[in-house]
């Protein structure tokens, strides 16, 4: 049987009801950059693969 969204929720967090400003207040640094990337990619989807473990 294919996994459902419910199966994923235990490790994927819903932050859709929180503003970025609120999250920024909670923590600066790497966390905020990751959130900004997610928001950025909602508007401008990126190529599915940017990495190659033998190159950076």
């Amino acid at each position: 049987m294919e996994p459902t969204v419910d199966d994923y929720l235990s490790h994927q967090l819903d932050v859709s009801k929180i503003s970025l400003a609120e999250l920024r207040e909670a923590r600066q640094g790497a966390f905020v950059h990751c959130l900004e990337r997610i928001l950025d990619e909602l508007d401008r989807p990126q190529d599915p693969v940017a990495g190659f473990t033998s190159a950076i």
Partner: protein
Amino acid sequence: MVTSAPPSLPLPSEWPLGESPLDITPAGWRPTPFHDFVVKLHSRCDLACDYCYMYELADRSWRGRTAFMPDEVVDLATRRIAEHARDHRLSTIRVILHGGEPLLAPPATLQRVVSTLRAALSSGTAAQFTVQTNGTRLTEQRLRLLSAAGLRVGVSVDGGRVANDRHRRHLGGRSSFPAVDRALRLLREQPDLFAGILSVIDLRNDPVETYETLLAYQPPALDFLLPHGNWSEPPPGRPPDASTRYGEWLVAVFDRWYDAPRRETRLRLFEEIVVGVLGGHSRSEQIGLSPVGVIVIDVDGSLEQVDTLRSAYEGAPATGLTVADHPLDAALRHPAVIARQIGAKALAPACLDCSVHPVCGGGYYPHRYRKGSGFRNPSVYCADLRYLIDHIAGRVQADVARVMRQRA
């Protein structure tokens, strides 16, 4: 990691090579075009790193290959890349000049790749060029030439002198650290040219000290790589049990990175996991379920899958295709390429039963190999990845919960 066992050929029944593309693709599925093109300019290296997947693991096919990419292959390769970009209307592509050690190739060869490809690409496609080097030949003059050609530089180094020289030595045992340290100092002064650092984990190295040593070179990006291995040839310090030494090593670095008051560098593995637990999509082939869009063009024009697969068995990256005879689209129909583009459909049943699989994506594909069954297995690093992802999810969850409490 070093193996002297005779190379084994793939068994026809090993997944996915025994499969028909029609049998493993969902109805209506369309391939993802290649966006990352790894062009191998030189098949030899001036280091003899004992964990190297090119020269020290299962695949010994490099011995029969020409040393460097001839101009006619450069021209064919760039023509095929441009054709692929045009046919799929790609707005951006990435070209990674690789080896062996790509700086063993004459500077004119590197410039030829960039100039012929830029000339062949249509105006709607932008190309980013990077060279991934061991750094030992990166002088000020060489850096000027790379800069003039429009190339950014990624460097492979494992930490400070002791950490680096555990594995990354010249043939005969001489240290490579003074030369790579000099290269990294040069790049620190020219941040526009610095693409980042790749570092292979050795459990004997202190994790935070290793991170901070590398951070001192101010790389814009950094990634820690798990040593290659699989269920049949286990990585060092990774017995087939529930131990999590690699996970613990990575957690120590994660906490140091995540708790810094500002982002000190992009740390690719961690960033992909944080994005994954927040429901975003991975942009790395190393982790997550995103379709892999990487193709390798070897020095002789062979089209190959990622060459870290060499750690599995002799000829594992081969597709049987060449730039002389085949468009790159032909590789999109290869079962092994398809297997890396169908997300959860390629995972083992044990992975599908695990709640973490949308984040880990089953782990890095070469690490799933087991002789006899192929690549439809959990990663040999499954316990470590689970430990790391649980920790990261917990840290992120705590931050989100704090916001919710403040709101209440």
